[in-house]
């Protein structure tokens, strides 16, 4: 359905940003007053409100499309631009987070030298992101994908006198550009194979004649696109730009961690039909996501800086999101990135206040008065009840929630990972409640358990409904899960292994945290320090790249130059 009114979604922030930029260029309003910044904040907020109306219209009437007045090779199809359910949800997330970040920055950045420029850049970047998520053609997506990198670079380096920010911006731009090259390679192969870059048309071709494109070619396309996603979403080994971005002002960090890093997850969803037709690529995606999640979360534990911790936490969450895509649970990845975006933006925006309070309040950070240990009356003989409450009860709750939401774990293998995640999370919560003695009293335990059940059922139910909302076609959902699946012969051992790991982890945690006893073997304990250093140094990926690849290559170039040009050296 045609609806030109949807153009206001990207147009409002773009016009606001340009107007503010021009006013600042002519009259140098600078940091004189926050009221000029409203020129970008208000249009972005209006875009968010318009996004709500558009979402309503999309749900009621279907995808809104718009043709562009020009055409290029690869983007000659009529439906270049449009808003479907996925786009509408992403537009709300982007404009919502951008509005909050800009509103927060009105006072947070007041007095900064390039105050007005910051707001105009955020507004323009918001517009670019909206155009990215509403493009329905791979070449157009790539175009905005690049503009997003440029906008992010300008945003991160907007205060060029701050050297660490500028260096971080350059590193980010460089890594993103490397990903762009893979993305571009993927587009070239796709054009050679499909003779179109229109995503709807590509989907039709794959559905009608799945064997038209060979698995090798399709895997090459998908893996190239995925490499582009890896760079944007800080997947291992392209992750090293993300922690350095902490040098930028807090609002920029919030915008980046809540919105821009999600671009990879969005692209995987937008091109899910391509991914789903290449099972091999799905497994690669899963493995990369798994490594990233493990690496990011482990590194987070070793960092001393609050914002760095949050940065690596983002990396871990992005890895988890990628894992979900690799398992065919594409909608869960979107659900995850929305939830993560909102809570991570909150954490970043609060981190500045928290650090400020900690600096001025002598009682902070509080030292724990006593060692965490066994609550009074807790004995080894009570392992079974503790295990029942903290390990088995969460599993029952989570399984029950899946059953109630009519999620068939046998058909949707990818969902099982979500189950394990929920299990671990709920188990952690119940352990905390147990240690807080909330389960000691029957009257306290009942409401807490009820709340827990309600929460888990609500979360899983919402996730399932979101899946149906985003991918209403059941054949698509079945295709995603079957492509991400590995077959029962392999799936069962994996489930058993994961269960063993979780139970084993619980046992170690129980003995170490509650009993104060170390039960891990000595050869593991002896490697703790080196493992700690490995994660503390972020896996030394950057070091290896610099000293093993770039520097030797530079030396070779200089040697060649000297051979040709004599010994003179700049």
């Amino acid at each position: 359905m045609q609806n030109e009114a949807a153009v206001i979604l990207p147009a409002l922030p773009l016009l606001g940003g340009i107007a503010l930029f021009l006013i600042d260029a002519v009259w140098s309003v600078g940091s004189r007053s926050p009221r000029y910044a409203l020129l970008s904040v208000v249009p972005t907020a209006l875009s968010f409100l318009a996004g709500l109306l558009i979402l309503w219209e999309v749900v009621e009437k279907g995808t809104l499309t718009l043709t562009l007045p020009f055409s290029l090779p690869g983007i000659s199809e009529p439906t270049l631009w449009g808003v479907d359910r996925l786009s509408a949800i992403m537009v709300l997330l982007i404009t919502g987070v951008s509005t909050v970040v800009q509103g927060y920055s009105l006072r947070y950045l007041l007095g900064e030298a390039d105050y007005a420029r910051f707001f105009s850049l955020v507004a323009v970047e918001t517009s670019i992101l909206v155009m990215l998520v509403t493009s329905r053609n791979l070449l157009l997506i790539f175009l905005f994908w690049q503009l997003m990198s440029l906008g992010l670079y300008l945003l991160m380096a907007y205060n060029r006198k701050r050297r660490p920010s500028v260096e971080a911006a350059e590193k980010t731009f460089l890594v993103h550009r490397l990903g762009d090259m893979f993305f571009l390679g993927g587009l070239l192969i796709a054009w050679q194979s499909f003779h179109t870059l229109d995503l709807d048309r590509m989907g039709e071709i794959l559905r009608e004649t799945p064997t038209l494109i060979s698995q090798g070619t399709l895997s090459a396309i998908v893996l190239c696109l995925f490499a582009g996603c890896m760079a944007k979403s800080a997947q291992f080994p392209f992750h090293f730009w993300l922690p350095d971005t902490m040098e930028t002002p807090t609002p920029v960090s919030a915008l980046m961690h809540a919105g821009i890093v999600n671009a990879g997850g969005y692209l995987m969803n937008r091109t899910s039909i391509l991914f789903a037709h290449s099972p091999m690529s799905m497994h690669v995606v899963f493995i990369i996501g798994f490594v990233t999640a493990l690496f990011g979360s482990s590194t987070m534990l070793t960092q001393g800086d609050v914002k760095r911790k949050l940065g690596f936490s983002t990396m871990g969450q992005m890895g988890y999101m990628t894992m979900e895509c690799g398992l065919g649970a594409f909608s869960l990845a979107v659900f995850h990135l929305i939830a993560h975006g909102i809570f991570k933006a909150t954490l970043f925006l609060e981190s500045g206040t928290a650090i400020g309070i900690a600096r001025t309040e002598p009682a902070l950070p509080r030292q724990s008065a006593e060692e965490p240990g066994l609550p009074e009356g807790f004995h080894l003989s009570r392992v079974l009840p503790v295990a029942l409450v903290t390990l088995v009860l969460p599993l029952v709750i989570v399984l029950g929630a899946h059953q109630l939401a009519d999620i068939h774990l046998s058909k949707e293998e990818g969902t099982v990972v979500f189950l394990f995640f929920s299990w671990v999370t709920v188990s952690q919560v119940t352990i905390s409640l147990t240690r807080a003695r909330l389960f000691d009293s029957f009257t306290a335990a009942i409401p807490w358990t009820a709340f827990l059940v309600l929460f888990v059922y609500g979360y899983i139910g919402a996730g399932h409904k979101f899946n149906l909302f985003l991918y209403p076609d059941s054949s698509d959902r079945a295709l995603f899960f079957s492509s991400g699946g590995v077959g029962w012969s392999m799936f069962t051992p994996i489930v058993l292994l994961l269960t063993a790991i979780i139970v084993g982890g619980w046992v170690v945690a129980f003995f170490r945290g509650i009993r104060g006893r170390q039960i891990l073997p000595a050869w593991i304990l002896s490697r703790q320090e080196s493992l700690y250093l490995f994660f503390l140094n972020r896996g030394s990926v950057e070091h290896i790249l610099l000293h093993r690849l770039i520097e030797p290559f530079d030396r070779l170039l200089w040697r060649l130059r000297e051979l040709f040009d004599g010994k003179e050296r700049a």
Partner: protein
Amino acid sequence: MQALSPEILLILLPLLSPLLRPLFPAGRRKVWATILPVAFFLLLILLQLLKGEGGLFVSPLPETGLLLTLCLGVLLLPILLILPERPAAPHAGRLPAVWLPCLLLSAGALGFLGSGPGRVLGGGAGLIFLLFLGALVLDGAFPGAYRRSFLLRLFLSGSISLGLALRPVLLVSLPGEVLFLAALLLLFPAPLSRRTERVVSPEFLKMDVLFFQSLPPLLAFQLLRSVPEGFPGVFPLLGGASLVWGLLGLFRAKTAHYVQEVADGLAAAGMGALTAGMLSGTSQGQAGGLFLAILLPQAALLGGLVLSSLVLRYRVRTMVGLSGSGTMIAPLRLAFLLAAFQGMSLPLVGGFLGEWRLLLGIWARSPFLGAGVLAGLFYSFFLVLAFLRRLFSGDGPVLSRGDGEIVRTLWPGELLAFGTGSFFLLLTDLAATAGHIFGRIP
């Protein structure tokens, strides 16, 4: 061959500039006398381009030729304004008379004659070289120490262009093709030339930019534009050689000491991609080649003008010496950023569409070489980003006493250069595709 109408003589219109100029006293009227004929000429070309076949000229003229002419003319205009302002030059009065006709006739010839097929094409390119050769000999400002090597290269390049008329004879065998390629690569801004401390003279820099960064891409495009489908037979060999030559340019830029070395290296890299695209013999490769042929001179000229004004102001010509200079003057900052983003092939500043079409063409013939272009694109991005960092970091060079006067006399021309350069960088990406100038959709 397309029949050209008598209106083609309109390309002589800019010659009114040097004729009218001496008739007016120094000052604003002299400037107007210089600008107006050229501006009128450019306006006519623009109108023709917009109206298409039913436009000003009776016979249809190739759109590519019109676009090239417009591009070159607009780009050269600022140089025309700046060159006569050379302070205390011994031959200052002779310069407009020499340069104006040469530059504008070259622009016209390149656009119109070069748009025709076969011998007309070769003749057009040869004419350009002869004109420049004449200008070079006549212009006393060109440093004598470098004249010999430049003359040699120009002579070789001119021989190639004139020898194009004999191309069917040359290209019947593999040795013939290889010889042709070797001669063609001589056009590149010397990726392997020895490091020289080039003369500290903004005029020299402008001429250098014109000769070795702006014109070679246009000439390479003109030389290769009639490459037929599937020509030459050994594309991986010839296209690969061009790309390797371009990569050598990038490596040279990485280890550059002088600013002009960087410019040479980047222009050579762009030409490597352009040549490979044109040699691919595909319509996409050739359309991408045209994009690059227009964009490379723009970026080079824009950067060259900025650098020449910096050299004038600060008397520095090394990369280290220019540290921080990008932060000093607002228009320079904008110009640097525009030229850098163009060098990075970012969208909206001219690089994206050319890059896409060129890659489509090369990839269709050889995915291996296509991957090589992708690697080169990333490496050039890395280099440009590093140069940008250098230009925007540091305290900047110190202004010498008395240079304020020069700055005052130069800024209108520079502003015009930034404006025109920026205009075209934007135009080529946003507007030029509307008229199918760069080939129809496959």
